[in-house]
């Protein structure tokens, strides 16, 4: 599973993208976030206020309760500020 991080999420985790093996039982976006927070202080910091983090599965916006299913990539980022 490919994970992507953007803007201040990327700055805090210190990485833009990585390939990971998700633990068994991690089925939703929210559960991925819960697992990421256990991966060290940078991740704990980046996902501290989990409720402000937005996510996309295979480049479609999703909510935290979305199921991962056969996702190829999941992205995590702050609320968008383009335009």
């Amino acid at each position, binding site marked *: 599973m490919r994970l992507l991080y*953007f803007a201040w999420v990327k700055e805090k985790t210190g990485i833009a993208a990585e390939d990971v093996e998700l633990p068994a039982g991690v089925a939703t976006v929210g559960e991925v976030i819960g697992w990421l927070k256990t991966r060290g202080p940078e991740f704990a910091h980046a996902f501290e206020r989990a409720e402000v983090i937005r996510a*996309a599965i295979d480049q479609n*916006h999703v909510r935290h309760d979305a199921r991962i299913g056969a996702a190829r990539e999941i992205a995590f*980022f702050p*609320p*968008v*500020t*383009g*335009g």
Partner: protein
Amino acid sequence: MIRVQQEDFDVAAEIARLKAGRSDIGAIVTFTGTVRDQAGAITEMTLEHYPGMTERELTRLEAQANARWPLQASLIVHRTGTLRPGDNIVLVVTASEHRDAAFDAARFLMDYLKTSAPLWKQETGPHGSHWVEAEPDDESARASWQQKRAAE
């Protein structure tokens, strides 16, 4: 049509391209977003984005606008990379037979783009850099279109 690019755009050239070879268009609206220096607080603005998803979202928004209004042509161009005060950030162009559709669609595209296109602004000033916070007003601007749709 949509484009995500580092280069600047030329509004007149884009209008000319939309109009080329046709004389059925009656109304053309353009929106250009530019970098404000905010009284010297901003010296640079960097736009990060999610390559692939940005194009996908803009394409989806353009299709939504075309489904909702009788547009004869539409265009969204968003720049990425490092910009300076006065520089262009985003361009939306809509063409229709009548002005209402062109105005509504251009505003709809901007309101939706602001809340769904995966782009993030980082501002740099004399005291360092920070990521721009999303504005609650942008969310309510988007919600108002959903209410209008529901009322139709």
